[in-house]
Protein backbone atom coordinates (compact mmCIF):
# COMPACT_ATOMS: atom_id res chain seq x y z
CA UNK A 1 0.00 0.00 0.00
CA UNK A 2 1.16 3.48 -0.88
CA UNK A 3 -0.15 6.56 0.92
CA UNK A 4 0.34 10.30 1.23
CA UNK A 5 -0.97 13.16 3.31
CA UNK A 6 -2.47 16.31 1.86
CA UNK A 7 -3.75 19.53 3.42
CA UNK A 8 -6.72 21.00 1.58
CA UNK A 9 -6.26 24.55 0.30
CA UNK A 10 -9.56 24.88 -1.59
CA UNK A 11 -11.82 27.42 0.08
CA UNK A 12 -14.87 25.15 0.47
CA UNK A 13 -12.96 21.90 0.93
CA UNK A 14 -13.80 18.69 -0.91
CA UNK A 15 -17.04 20.12 -2.32
CA UNK A 16 -19.23 18.73 -5.04
CA UNK A 17 -17.25 19.80 -8.08
CA UNK A 18 -13.75 18.58 -7.19
CA UNK A 19 -15.24 15.51 -5.48
CA UNK A 20 -16.94 14.68 -8.78
CA UNK A 21 -13.72 15.20 -10.68
CA UNK A 22 -11.86 13.01 -8.18
CA UNK A 23 -14.41 10.23 -8.64
CA UNK A 24 -13.93 10.41 -12.40
CA UNK A 25 -10.16 10.34 -11.97
CA UNK A 26 -9.99 7.34 -9.64
CA UNK A 27 -12.42 5.34 -11.74
CA UNK A 28 -9.68 5.23 -14.37
CA UNK A 29 -7.63 2.94 -12.13
CA UNK A 30 -8.12 -0.55 -10.80
CA UNK A 31 -6.52 0.21 -7.43
CA UNK A 32 -8.61 0.70 -4.29
CA UNK A 33 -8.21 4.33 -3.24
CA UNK A 34 -9.34 5.58 0.16
CA UNK A 35 -9.50 9.05 1.67
CA UNK A 36 -9.31 9.24 5.46
CA UNK A 37 -10.00 12.17 7.74
CA UNK A 38 -9.98 11.91 11.54
CA UNK A 39 -10.38 8.14 11.44
CA UNK A 40 -13.35 8.34 9.05
CA UNK A 41 -12.66 6.78 5.70
CA UNK A 42 -14.34 6.88 2.31
CA UNK A 43 -13.64 5.16 -0.95
CA UNK A 44 -12.60 7.83 -3.44
CA UNK A 45 -14.82 6.52 -6.21
CA UNK A 46 -17.94 7.10 -4.09
CA UNK A 47 -19.07 10.70 -4.42
CA UNK A 48 -21.54 10.90 -1.54
CA UNK A 49 -19.28 9.11 0.93
CA UNK A 50 -16.46 11.40 -0.06
CA UNK A 51 -18.56 14.51 0.47
CA UNK A 52 -19.90 12.95 3.64
CA UNK A 53 -16.43 13.25 5.17
CA UNK A 54 -17.05 16.99 5.28
CA UNK A 55 -13.45 17.86 4.47
CA UNK A 56 -12.86 21.58 4.79
CA UNK A 57 -10.07 24.00 3.95
CA UNK A 58 -7.07 23.36 6.21
CA UNK A 59 -8.04 19.77 6.98
CA UNK A 60 -5.37 17.16 6.41
CA UNK A 61 -6.45 13.92 4.76
CA UNK A 62 -4.58 10.68 4.23
CA UNK A 63 -4.97 9.12 0.81
CA UNK A 64 -4.08 5.45 0.41
CA UNK A 65 -3.72 3.46 -2.80
CA UNK A 66 -3.72 -0.31 -2.84
CA UNK A 67 -3.15 -2.81 -5.62
CA UNK A 68 -2.23 -2.57 -9.26
CA UNK A 69 0.37 -0.04 -10.14
CA UNK A 70 0.09 1.69 -6.78
CA UNK A 71 3.29 3.77 -6.95
CA UNK A 72 2.37 5.40 -10.24
CA UNK A 73 -1.31 5.75 -9.35
CA UNK A 74 -0.51 7.41 -6.02
CA UNK A 75 1.69 9.93 -7.83
CA UNK A 76 -1.13 10.70 -10.28
CA UNK A 77 -3.68 11.12 -7.49
CA UNK A 78 -1.35 13.32 -5.47
CA UNK A 79 -0.93 15.51 -8.52
CA UNK A 80 -4.72 15.67 -8.86
CA UNK A 81 -5.08 16.87 -5.24
CA UNK A 82 -2.46 19.56 -5.78
CA UNK A 83 -4.20 20.84 -8.90
CA UNK A 84 -7.80 20.69 -7.74
CA UNK A 85 -7.92 20.80 -3.95
Amino acid sequence: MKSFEYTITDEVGIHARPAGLLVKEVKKYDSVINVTKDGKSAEAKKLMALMGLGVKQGDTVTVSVEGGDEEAVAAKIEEFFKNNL
Partner: protein
Amino acid sequence: MDKKAGKKIFNGIAIGKIKFYSKKENPVSRVKVEDTDAEIARYEAAKDEAVKQLEQLYEKALVEVGEANAEIFNVHIMMLDDDDFNESVLNIISVQKVNAEYALAATGDNFAEMFANMEDEYFKARSADIRDITERVLSILCGNSESTDIGEEPVIIAAEDLAPSETVQMDKDKLLAFVTRLGSSNSHTAILARTMGIPALAGVEIDPSWDGKIGIVDGYEGICIVEPTMPVLEEYFKKKSADDEQKKLLQTLKGKENITKSGQKINLYANIGNPNDLMTVMENDAGGIGLFRSEFLYLESETYPTEEEQFQAYKKVVETMGGKKVIIRTLDIGADKQANYFGLDKEENPALGYRAIRICLTRPEVFRTQLRALFRASAYGNLAIMYPMIISVDEVRSIKEISKEVRSELAAEGVQIGDVEEGIMIETPAAAVMSDELAKLVDFFSIGTNDLTQYTLAIDRQNAKLDDFYDAHHPAVLRLIETVIKNAHKAGIWAGICGELGADTTLTKTFLKMGIDELSVSPGCILPVRKAVREAE
Protein backbone atom coordinates in the same frame (compact mmCIF):
# COMPACT_ATOMS: atom_id res chain seq x y z
CA MET B 1 -51.01 45.16 3.50
CA ASP B 2 -48.81 42.40 4.84
CA LYS B 3 -45.09 42.90 5.45
CA LYS B 4 -42.64 40.06 6.04
CA ALA B 5 -38.91 40.17 6.68
CA GLY B 6 -36.42 37.69 5.26
CA LYS B 7 -32.78 37.00 4.72
CA LYS B 8 -31.27 39.03 1.88
CA ILE B 9 -29.99 36.76 -0.88
CA PHE B 10 -29.71 39.23 -3.71
CA ASN B 11 -30.53 42.93 -3.91
CA GLY B 12 -32.82 44.76 -6.26
CA ILE B 13 -36.46 45.72 -6.26
CA ALA B 14 -39.34 43.85 -7.86
CA ILE B 15 -43.00 44.80 -8.11
CA GLY B 16 -45.54 42.45 -9.59
CA LYS B 17 -48.02 39.66 -9.22
CA ILE B 18 -47.07 36.87 -6.83
CA LYS B 19 -47.15 33.30 -8.06
CA PHE B 20 -47.27 30.76 -5.28
CA TYR B 21 -45.26 27.90 -6.67
CA SER B 22 -45.72 24.48 -5.20
CA LYS B 23 -44.05 21.33 -6.35
CA LYS B 24 -46.17 18.60 -7.71
CA GLU B 25 -46.06 16.07 -4.93
CA ASN B 26 -44.98 12.58 -5.74
CA PRO B 27 -46.83 10.66 -3.07
CA VAL B 28 -45.02 7.43 -2.37
CA SER B 29 -46.60 4.39 -0.85
CA ARG B 30 -44.95 1.14 0.06
CA VAL B 31 -46.17 -1.62 -2.20
CA LYS B 32 -45.09 -5.27 -2.00
CA VAL B 33 -43.88 -6.70 -5.30
CA GLU B 34 -43.17 -10.23 -6.47
CA ASP B 35 -40.91 -9.51 -9.42
CA THR B 36 -38.06 -7.52 -7.85
CA ASP B 37 -35.98 -7.79 -11.02
CA ALA B 38 -38.67 -5.90 -12.91
CA GLU B 39 -38.66 -3.17 -10.22
CA ILE B 40 -34.90 -2.89 -10.49
CA ALA B 41 -35.20 -2.58 -14.25
CA ARG B 42 -37.85 0.16 -13.79
CA TYR B 43 -35.51 2.02 -11.46
CA GLU B 44 -32.56 1.73 -13.84
CA ALA B 45 -34.65 2.98 -16.76
CA ALA B 46 -35.98 5.94 -14.76
CA LYS B 47 -32.47 6.78 -13.62
CA ASP B 48 -31.18 6.71 -17.21
CA GLU B 49 -34.01 9.00 -18.25
CA ALA B 50 -33.15 11.36 -15.36
CA VAL B 51 -29.53 11.50 -16.51
CA LYS B 52 -30.73 12.35 -20.01
CA GLN B 53 -32.85 15.21 -18.60
CA LEU B 54 -29.93 16.47 -16.56
CA GLU B 55 -27.68 16.47 -19.59
CA GLN B 56 -30.22 18.63 -21.40
CA LEU B 57 -30.55 20.92 -18.38
CA TYR B 58 -26.79 21.27 -18.31
CA GLU B 59 -26.75 22.42 -21.93
CA LYS B 60 -29.57 24.89 -21.27
CA ALA B 61 -27.95 26.28 -18.14
CA LEU B 62 -24.61 26.56 -19.89
CA VAL B 63 -26.09 29.05 -22.33
CA GLU B 64 -28.28 30.90 -19.85
CA VAL B 65 -26.27 31.13 -16.67
CA GLY B 66 -22.73 30.08 -17.53
CA GLU B 67 -20.52 27.09 -16.86
CA ALA B 68 -19.97 27.63 -13.14
CA ASN B 69 -23.70 27.53 -12.44
CA ALA B 70 -24.41 24.80 -14.96
CA GLU B 71 -21.90 22.54 -13.23
CA ILE B 72 -24.50 21.61 -10.61
CA PHE B 73 -26.26 19.41 -13.15
CA ASN B 74 -23.06 17.48 -13.81
CA VAL B 75 -22.80 16.99 -10.07
CA HIS B 76 -26.38 15.70 -10.03
CA ILE B 77 -25.50 13.22 -12.76
CA MET B 78 -22.55 11.99 -10.71
CA MET B 79 -24.71 11.76 -7.60
CA LEU B 80 -27.17 9.58 -9.47
CA ASP B 81 -24.25 7.44 -10.49
CA ASP B 82 -23.08 7.02 -6.90
CA ASP B 83 -22.49 3.38 -5.96
CA ASP B 84 -23.71 3.69 -2.39
CA PHE B 85 -26.90 5.47 -3.41
CA ASN B 86 -27.78 2.91 -6.07
CA GLU B 87 -26.85 -0.07 -3.95
CA SER B 88 -29.14 1.22 -1.24
CA VAL B 89 -32.08 1.48 -3.66
CA LEU B 90 -31.47 -1.96 -5.17
CA ASN B 91 -30.96 -3.47 -1.75
CA ILE B 92 -34.26 -2.15 -0.41
CA ILE B 93 -36.11 -3.42 -3.49
CA SER B 94 -34.70 -6.93 -3.33
CA VAL B 95 -34.57 -7.45 0.43
CA GLN B 96 -37.89 -5.85 1.36
CA LYS B 97 -39.55 -6.89 -1.91
CA VAL B 98 -41.01 -3.42 -2.40
CA ASN B 99 -41.62 -1.01 -5.26
CA ALA B 100 -38.86 1.17 -6.75
CA GLU B 101 -40.59 4.41 -5.68
CA TYR B 102 -40.51 3.46 -2.03
CA ALA B 103 -36.91 2.22 -2.15
CA LEU B 104 -35.80 5.42 -3.85
CA ALA B 105 -37.69 7.76 -1.50
CA ALA B 106 -36.29 5.99 1.56
CA THR B 107 -32.76 6.13 0.18
CA GLY B 108 -33.12 9.80 -0.73
CA ASP B 109 -34.36 10.60 2.79
CA ASN B 110 -31.42 8.82 4.38
CA PHE B 111 -28.78 10.52 2.26
CA ALA B 112 -30.41 13.94 2.54
CA GLU B 113 -30.48 13.53 6.30
CA MET B 114 -26.82 12.59 6.40
CA PHE B 115 -25.93 15.88 4.70
CA ALA B 116 -28.44 17.93 6.70
CA ASN B 117 -26.73 16.76 9.89
CA MET B 118 -23.30 17.92 8.83
CA GLU B 119 -21.78 20.89 10.61
CA ASP B 120 -20.50 22.89 7.68
CA GLU B 121 -23.06 25.14 5.96
CA TYR B 122 -21.86 24.19 2.51
CA PHE B 123 -22.29 20.46 3.05
CA LYS B 124 -25.59 21.00 4.88
CA ALA B 125 -26.98 22.76 1.82
CA ARG B 126 -26.17 19.69 -0.31
CA SER B 127 -29.15 17.83 1.17
CA ALA B 128 -31.26 19.95 -1.20
CA ASP B 129 -29.35 18.39 -4.12
CA ILE B 130 -30.14 14.90 -2.89
CA ARG B 131 -33.83 15.78 -2.62
CA ASP B 132 -33.70 17.28 -6.06
CA ILE B 133 -32.29 14.19 -7.77
CA THR B 134 -34.60 11.91 -5.77
CA GLU B 135 -37.66 13.90 -6.83
CA ARG B 136 -36.52 13.89 -10.43
CA VAL B 137 -36.31 10.10 -10.63
CA LEU B 138 -39.53 9.74 -8.63
CA SER B 139 -41.40 11.97 -11.09
CA ILE B 140 -40.26 9.76 -13.92
CA LEU B 141 -41.26 6.61 -12.05
CA CYS B 142 -44.68 8.06 -11.23
CA GLY B 143 -45.17 9.27 -14.81
CA ASN B 144 -45.46 12.90 -13.75
CA SER B 145 -43.95 15.17 -16.30
CA GLU B 146 -42.08 18.05 -14.75
CA SER B 147 -43.92 21.28 -15.01
CA THR B 148 -42.32 24.56 -14.19
CA ASP B 149 -44.64 26.59 -16.35
CA ILE B 150 -45.20 29.86 -14.53
CA GLY B 151 -47.67 31.43 -16.93
CA GLU B 152 -47.50 34.29 -19.38
CA GLU B 153 -47.14 37.26 -17.05
CA PRO B 154 -43.91 38.16 -15.24
CA VAL B 155 -44.25 37.07 -11.62
CA ILE B 156 -42.63 37.06 -8.19
CA ILE B 157 -42.15 33.42 -7.28
CA ALA B 158 -43.03 32.49 -3.69
CA ALA B 159 -42.19 28.92 -2.71
CA GLU B 160 -41.25 26.67 0.19
CA ASP B 161 -37.94 25.98 -1.50
CA LEU B 162 -36.73 25.87 -5.06
CA ALA B 163 -34.50 23.19 -6.51
CA PRO B 164 -31.79 24.38 -8.90
CA SER B 165 -33.39 22.42 -11.70
CA GLU B 166 -36.66 24.24 -11.14
CA THR B 167 -35.17 27.70 -11.24
CA VAL B 168 -33.21 26.94 -14.40
CA GLN B 169 -36.27 25.62 -16.20
CA MET B 170 -38.36 28.69 -15.46
CA ASP B 171 -38.61 31.23 -18.24
CA LYS B 172 -36.09 33.94 -17.29
CA ASP B 173 -38.07 36.73 -18.94
CA LYS B 174 -41.00 36.08 -16.64
CA LEU B 175 -39.11 35.99 -13.36
CA LEU B 176 -39.17 39.11 -11.20
CA ALA B 177 -37.94 37.75 -7.86
CA PHE B 178 -37.66 34.69 -5.63
CA VAL B 179 -39.09 34.54 -2.12
CA THR B 180 -38.66 31.26 -0.26
CA ARG B 181 -39.18 29.95 3.24
CA LEU B 182 -36.20 27.61 3.11
CA GLY B 183 -32.92 27.86 1.25
CA SER B 184 -29.70 29.50 2.31
CA SER B 185 -27.29 31.95 0.77
CA ASN B 186 -25.19 28.89 -0.09
CA SER B 187 -27.94 27.26 -2.12
CA HIS B 188 -27.68 26.99 -5.87
CA THR B 189 -30.91 28.93 -6.18
CA ALA B 190 -29.21 31.84 -4.41
CA ILE B 191 -26.25 31.63 -6.76
CA LEU B 192 -28.57 31.51 -9.75
CA ALA B 193 -30.55 34.51 -8.48
CA ARG B 194 -27.29 36.42 -8.24
CA THR B 195 -26.25 35.41 -11.73
CA MET B 196 -29.63 36.34 -13.16
CA GLY B 197 -29.55 39.58 -11.18
CA ILE B 198 -33.03 39.31 -9.70
CA PRO B 199 -33.89 40.08 -6.07
CA ALA B 200 -34.21 37.08 -3.78
CA LEU B 201 -35.12 36.54 -0.13
CA ALA B 202 -35.05 33.39 1.98
CA GLY B 203 -36.48 32.65 5.41
CA VAL B 204 -39.74 34.43 4.61
CA GLU B 205 -43.03 33.25 6.19
CA ILE B 206 -44.74 32.73 2.86
CA ASP B 207 -48.46 32.01 2.56
CA PRO B 208 -50.39 30.22 -0.21
CA SER B 209 -53.08 32.95 0.01
CA TRP B 210 -50.58 35.35 -1.59
CA ASP B 211 -51.09 33.68 -4.95
CA GLY B 212 -52.27 36.22 -7.54
CA LYS B 213 -51.87 39.22 -5.26
CA ILE B 214 -49.62 42.21 -5.93
CA GLY B 215 -46.34 42.12 -4.09
CA ILE B 216 -43.10 44.04 -3.63
CA VAL B 217 -39.73 42.44 -2.98
CA ASP B 218 -37.08 44.75 -1.60
CA GLY B 219 -33.79 42.88 -1.71
CA TYR B 220 -31.91 45.82 -0.18
CA GLU B 221 -33.96 45.93 3.01
CA GLY B 222 -34.81 42.23 3.05
CA ILE B 223 -38.56 42.72 3.08
CA CYS B 224 -41.49 41.45 1.12
CA ILE B 225 -44.77 43.39 1.04
CA VAL B 226 -48.05 41.82 -0.04
CA GLU B 227 -50.96 43.99 -1.21
CA PRO B 228 -49.17 47.29 -0.55
CA THR B 229 -51.18 50.45 0.02
CA MET B 230 -51.13 53.07 -2.73
CA PRO B 231 -48.54 55.35 -1.04
CA VAL B 232 -46.20 52.40 -0.45
CA LEU B 233 -46.64 51.23 -4.02
CA GLU B 234 -45.88 54.71 -5.36
CA GLU B 235 -42.81 54.98 -3.15
CA TYR B 236 -41.59 51.68 -4.52
CA PHE B 237 -42.22 52.61 -8.14
CA LYS B 238 -39.87 55.54 -7.51
CA LYS B 239 -37.28 53.35 -5.78
CA LYS B 240 -37.48 50.85 -8.57
CA SER B 241 -36.88 53.37 -11.34
CA ALA B 242 -33.89 54.78 -9.41
CA ASP B 243 -32.63 51.23 -8.99
CA ASP B 244 -33.08 50.44 -12.67
CA GLU B 245 -31.19 53.59 -13.55
CA GLN B 246 -28.35 52.52 -11.27
CA LYS B 247 -28.27 49.06 -12.82
CA LYS B 248 -28.12 50.52 -16.30
CA LEU B 249 -25.17 52.63 -15.19
CA LEU B 250 -23.58 49.52 -13.78
CA GLN B 251 -23.79 47.76 -17.10
CA THR B 252 -22.25 50.56 -19.12
CA LEU B 253 -19.63 51.66 -16.59
CA LYS B 254 -18.45 48.40 -15.11
CA GLY B 255 -14.85 47.69 -15.92
CA LYS B 256 -14.30 51.20 -17.29
CA GLU B 257 -11.47 53.45 -16.10
CA ASN B 258 -11.98 56.52 -13.92
CA ILE B 259 -10.51 58.84 -16.50
CA THR B 260 -11.43 62.32 -17.68
CA LYS B 261 -11.66 63.33 -21.32
CA SER B 262 -8.18 64.86 -21.12
CA GLY B 263 -6.71 61.70 -19.61
CA GLN B 264 -6.56 62.50 -15.87
CA LYS B 265 -6.98 59.27 -13.93
CA ILE B 266 -8.04 58.83 -10.31
CA ASN B 267 -8.80 55.91 -8.03
CA LEU B 268 -12.38 55.30 -6.96
CA TYR B 269 -12.63 53.30 -3.76
CA ALA B 270 -15.46 52.30 -1.45
CA ASN B 271 -16.24 53.19 2.19
CA ILE B 272 -17.52 50.29 4.26
CA GLY B 273 -18.13 49.49 7.90
CA ASN B 274 -18.60 45.75 7.90
CA PRO B 275 -17.22 42.72 6.02
CA ASN B 276 -20.83 41.97 4.98
CA ASP B 277 -20.61 44.98 2.66
CA LEU B 278 -17.89 43.36 0.55
CA MET B 279 -20.44 41.95 -1.88
CA THR B 280 -21.74 45.42 -2.78
CA VAL B 281 -18.16 46.66 -3.10
CA MET B 282 -17.51 44.04 -5.78
CA GLU B 283 -20.87 44.54 -7.48
CA ASN B 284 -20.25 48.24 -7.86
CA ASP B 285 -16.78 47.69 -9.29
CA ALA B 286 -14.79 49.63 -6.68
CA GLY B 287 -11.04 49.76 -7.30
CA GLY B 288 -10.39 49.11 -3.62
CA ILE B 289 -11.57 50.07 -0.15
CA GLY B 290 -10.64 53.62 0.76
CA LEU B 291 -12.11 53.58 4.24
CA PHE B 292 -12.77 50.43 6.19
CA ARG B 293 -14.14 51.50 9.57
CA SER B 294 -12.81 49.03 12.11
CA GLU B 295 -15.35 50.05 14.79
CA PHE B 296 -17.73 47.21 14.00
CA LEU B 297 -15.28 44.82 15.69
CA TYR B 298 -15.52 46.86 18.88
CA LEU B 299 -19.19 47.84 18.78
CA GLU B 300 -20.46 44.32 18.07
CA SER B 301 -18.45 42.90 20.93
CA GLU B 302 -19.11 42.73 24.69
CA THR B 303 -15.44 43.09 25.46
CA TYR B 304 -12.21 44.10 23.72
CA PRO B 305 -11.87 42.00 20.54
CA THR B 306 -8.76 39.80 20.68
CA GLU B 307 -5.83 40.07 18.31
CA GLU B 308 -6.82 36.77 16.70
CA GLU B 309 -10.45 37.86 16.15
CA GLN B 310 -9.28 41.07 14.54
CA PHE B 311 -6.64 39.31 12.47
CA GLN B 312 -9.22 36.89 11.04
CA ALA B 313 -11.59 39.76 10.16
CA TYR B 314 -8.91 41.86 8.44
CA LYS B 315 -7.43 38.85 6.67
CA LYS B 316 -10.83 37.94 5.26
CA VAL B 317 -11.30 41.45 3.87
CA VAL B 318 -7.89 41.74 2.21
CA GLU B 319 -8.15 38.22 0.82
CA THR B 320 -11.62 38.84 -0.60
CA MET B 321 -10.39 42.01 -2.27
CA GLY B 322 -7.58 40.10 -3.99
CA GLY B 323 -4.67 42.41 -4.66
CA LYS B 324 -6.82 45.55 -4.44
CA LYS B 325 -5.96 48.15 -1.84
CA VAL B 326 -7.80 47.99 1.50
CA ILE B 327 -7.30 51.02 3.75
CA ILE B 328 -8.29 50.16 7.29
CA ARG B 329 -8.87 52.98 9.72
CA THR B 330 -7.84 52.28 13.29
CA LEU B 331 -10.35 52.48 16.09
CA ASP B 332 -12.51 55.62 15.94
CA ILE B 333 -14.66 55.16 19.01
CA GLY B 334 -15.95 57.90 21.29
CA ALA B 335 -18.29 60.81 20.45
CA ASP B 336 -21.45 59.18 19.01
CA LYS B 337 -19.92 55.67 18.86
CA GLN B 338 -19.81 54.12 22.31
CA ALA B 339 -18.91 50.68 23.63
CA ASN B 340 -19.64 50.24 27.34
CA TYR B 341 -16.58 48.16 28.17
CA PHE B 342 -14.33 51.09 27.24
CA GLY B 343 -15.71 52.80 30.34
CA LEU B 344 -15.63 56.26 28.78
CA ASP B 345 -16.92 59.16 30.84
CA LYS B 346 -19.88 61.26 29.80
CA GLU B 347 -18.57 64.40 28.20
CA GLU B 348 -19.99 67.83 27.70
CA ASN B 349 -18.61 68.12 24.16
CA PRO B 350 -18.08 64.58 22.91
CA ALA B 351 -17.23 65.71 19.35
CA LEU B 352 -14.35 67.65 20.86
CA GLY B 353 -13.56 64.97 23.38
CA TYR B 354 -11.82 61.74 24.19
CA ARG B 355 -12.08 59.77 20.95
CA ALA B 356 -10.24 57.95 18.17
CA ILE B 357 -6.44 58.32 18.20
CA ARG B 358 -6.65 60.10 21.55
CA ILE B 359 -7.90 56.86 23.11
CA CYS B 360 -5.29 54.83 21.23
CA LEU B 361 -2.39 56.96 22.41
CA THR B 362 -3.48 56.92 26.06
CA ARG B 363 -4.35 53.21 26.00
CA PRO B 364 -1.47 51.78 23.99
CA GLU B 365 -2.41 48.18 24.85
CA VAL B 366 -5.67 48.54 22.89
CA PHE B 367 -3.82 50.22 20.02
CA ARG B 368 -1.00 47.65 19.90
CA THR B 369 -3.44 44.74 19.73
CA GLN B 370 -5.11 46.31 16.73
CA LEU B 371 -1.81 47.14 15.02
CA ARG B 372 -0.48 43.61 15.54
CA ALA B 373 -3.63 42.18 13.94
CA LEU B 374 -3.38 44.64 11.04
CA PHE B 375 0.29 43.97 10.29
CA ARG B 376 -0.26 40.22 10.50
CA ALA B 377 -3.15 40.49 8.02
CA SER B 378 -1.01 42.60 5.68
CA ALA B 379 0.78 39.47 4.48
CA TYR B 380 -2.46 38.30 2.82
CA GLY B 381 -3.16 41.20 0.48
CA ASN B 382 -2.72 44.91 -0.11
CA LEU B 383 -3.42 46.50 3.25
CA ALA B 384 -2.92 50.12 4.30
CA ILE B 385 -3.47 51.67 7.74
CA MET B 386 -5.05 55.04 8.37
CA TYR B 387 -5.08 56.96 11.66
CA PRO B 388 -8.06 59.22 12.52
CA MET B 389 -8.46 62.60 14.30
CA ILE B 390 -4.87 63.78 13.98
CA ILE B 391 -4.08 67.35 15.03
CA SER B 392 -0.30 67.45 15.40
CA VAL B 393 3.09 66.33 14.14
CA ASP B 394 3.91 64.97 17.61
CA GLU B 395 0.94 62.61 17.52
CA VAL B 396 2.10 61.19 14.21
CA ARG B 397 5.64 60.74 15.59
CA SER B 398 4.26 58.80 18.60
CA ILE B 399 2.10 56.64 16.32
CA LYS B 400 5.04 55.87 14.07
CA GLU B 401 7.15 54.88 17.05
CA ILE B 402 4.52 52.44 18.30
CA SER B 403 3.96 51.08 14.81
CA LYS B 404 7.70 50.55 14.38
CA GLU B 405 7.91 48.68 17.68
CA VAL B 406 5.00 46.47 16.73
CA ARG B 407 6.60 45.66 13.38
CA SER B 408 9.94 44.70 14.88
CA GLU B 409 8.16 42.67 17.58
CA LEU B 410 6.38 40.71 14.85
CA ALA B 411 9.54 40.38 12.79
CA ALA B 412 11.32 38.94 15.85
CA GLU B 413 8.51 36.39 16.16
CA GLY B 414 9.11 35.46 12.55
CA VAL B 415 5.73 36.77 11.38
CA GLN B 416 5.55 37.81 7.75
CA ILE B 417 4.45 41.39 7.05
CA GLY B 418 3.45 42.91 3.71
CA ASP B 419 4.26 46.38 2.38
CA VAL B 420 1.96 48.58 4.42
CA GLU B 421 1.24 52.21 3.56
CA GLU B 422 0.52 54.30 6.65
CA GLY B 423 -1.54 57.45 6.27
CA ILE B 424 -3.68 59.83 8.25
CA MET B 425 -7.13 61.30 8.08
CA ILE B 426 -7.25 65.03 7.61
CA GLU B 427 -10.45 65.89 9.43
CA THR B 428 -9.45 68.69 11.77
CA PRO B 429 -8.62 72.22 10.63
CA ALA B 430 -5.35 71.86 12.58
CA ALA B 431 -4.25 68.90 10.45
CA ALA B 432 -5.23 70.72 7.24
CA VAL B 433 -3.21 73.77 8.23
CA MET B 434 -0.22 71.64 9.26
CA SER B 435 -0.50 69.34 6.24
CA ASP B 436 2.86 70.49 4.79
CA GLU B 437 4.67 69.18 7.87
CA LEU B 438 2.49 66.11 8.27
CA ALA B 439 3.02 65.10 4.64
CA LYS B 440 6.72 64.48 5.35
CA LEU B 441 5.84 61.79 7.89
CA VAL B 442 3.17 59.69 6.19
CA ASP B 443 2.42 57.81 2.97
CA PHE B 444 -0.97 59.37 2.18
CA PHE B 445 -3.75 61.72 3.29
CA SER B 446 -7.44 60.96 3.28
CA ILE B 447 -9.66 63.96 3.89
CA GLY B 448 -12.63 63.31 6.17
CA THR B 449 -14.93 66.06 4.97
CA ASN B 450 -17.78 65.44 7.43
CA ASP B 451 -15.75 66.29 10.52
CA LEU B 452 -13.57 68.79 8.69
CA THR B 453 -16.67 70.78 7.70
CA GLN B 454 -18.24 70.57 11.14
CA TYR B 455 -15.03 71.70 12.88
CA THR B 456 -14.20 74.40 10.33
CA LEU B 457 -17.66 75.95 10.34
CA ALA B 458 -18.29 75.29 14.05
CA ILE B 459 -21.66 73.87 13.11
CA ASP B 460 -23.24 70.78 14.58
CA ARG B 461 -24.80 68.96 11.63
CA GLN B 462 -27.33 67.21 13.86
CA ASN B 463 -28.87 70.56 14.80
CA ALA B 464 -31.63 71.32 12.28
CA LYS B 465 -31.87 74.94 13.49
CA LEU B 466 -28.47 75.59 11.93
CA ASP B 467 -29.42 74.36 8.46
CA ASP B 468 -29.62 77.90 7.09
CA PHE B 469 -26.05 78.59 8.16
CA TYR B 470 -24.65 75.33 6.95
CA ASP B 471 -23.06 75.29 3.52
CA ALA B 472 -21.58 71.98 2.45
CA HIS B 473 -19.64 73.80 -0.28
CA HIS B 474 -18.31 76.53 2.01
CA PRO B 475 -15.23 78.09 0.37
CA ALA B 476 -13.26 77.74 3.62
CA VAL B 477 -13.59 73.96 3.46
CA LEU B 478 -12.76 73.86 -0.25
CA ARG B 479 -9.69 76.01 0.32
CA LEU B 480 -8.50 73.69 3.07
CA ILE B 481 -8.98 70.69 0.78
CA GLU B 482 -6.98 72.38 -1.95
CA THR B 483 -4.17 73.18 0.51
CA VAL B 484 -4.06 69.60 1.71
CA ILE B 485 -3.82 68.21 -1.82
CA LYS B 486 -1.11 70.70 -2.77
CA ASN B 487 0.95 69.91 0.32
CA ALA B 488 0.59 66.18 -0.26
CA HIS B 489 1.88 66.47 -3.81
CA LYS B 490 4.74 68.70 -2.71
CA ALA B 491 5.94 65.90 -0.42
CA GLY B 492 5.36 63.30 -3.12
CA ILE B 493 2.44 61.50 -1.45
CA TRP B 494 -1.15 61.00 -2.61
CA ALA B 495 -4.31 62.60 -1.26
CA GLY B 496 -7.90 61.40 -1.31
CA ILE B 497 -11.29 62.24 0.12
CA CYS B 498 -13.31 59.72 2.12
CA GLY B 499 -16.06 61.98 3.44
CA GLU B 500 -19.53 62.54 1.97
CA LEU B 501 -18.28 65.41 -0.15
CA GLY B 502 -16.33 62.90 -2.24
CA ALA B 503 -19.61 61.49 -3.56
CA ASP B 504 -21.03 64.93 -4.39
CA THR B 505 -20.90 64.85 -8.19
CA THR B 506 -21.40 68.62 -8.42
CA LEU B 507 -17.89 68.90 -6.92
CA THR B 508 -16.15 66.14 -8.87
CA LYS B 509 -14.78 68.61 -11.45
CA THR B 510 -13.53 70.92 -8.70
CA PHE B 511 -11.68 68.08 -6.98
CA LEU B 512 -10.20 66.89 -10.26
CA LYS B 513 -8.94 70.39 -10.94
CA MET B 514 -7.33 70.43 -7.49
CA GLY B 515 -5.51 67.26 -8.50
CA ILE B 516 -7.25 64.78 -6.20
CA ASP B 517 -5.77 61.26 -6.49
CA GLU B 518 -8.53 59.21 -4.93
CA LEU B 519 -12.20 59.47 -3.96
CA SER B 520 -13.66 56.97 -1.55
CA VAL B 521 -17.45 56.84 -1.48
CA SER B 522 -20.22 54.50 -0.38
CA PRO B 523 -20.43 51.53 -2.78
CA GLY B 524 -23.67 52.71 -4.40
CA CYS B 525 -22.02 56.03 -5.36
CA ILE B 526 -19.01 54.55 -7.19
CA LEU B 527 -20.63 54.38 -10.61
CA PRO B 528 -22.35 57.80 -10.52
CA VAL B 529 -19.00 59.35 -9.55
CA ARG B 530 -17.23 57.36 -12.29
CA LYS B 531 -19.75 58.82 -14.72
CA ALA B 532 -18.99 62.35 -13.50
CA VAL B 533 -15.24 61.74 -13.84
CA ARG B 534 -15.60 60.40 -17.37
CA GLU B 535 -17.73 63.39 -18.37
CA ALA B 536 -15.21 65.89 -16.98
CA GLU B 537 -12.74 67.63 -19.30
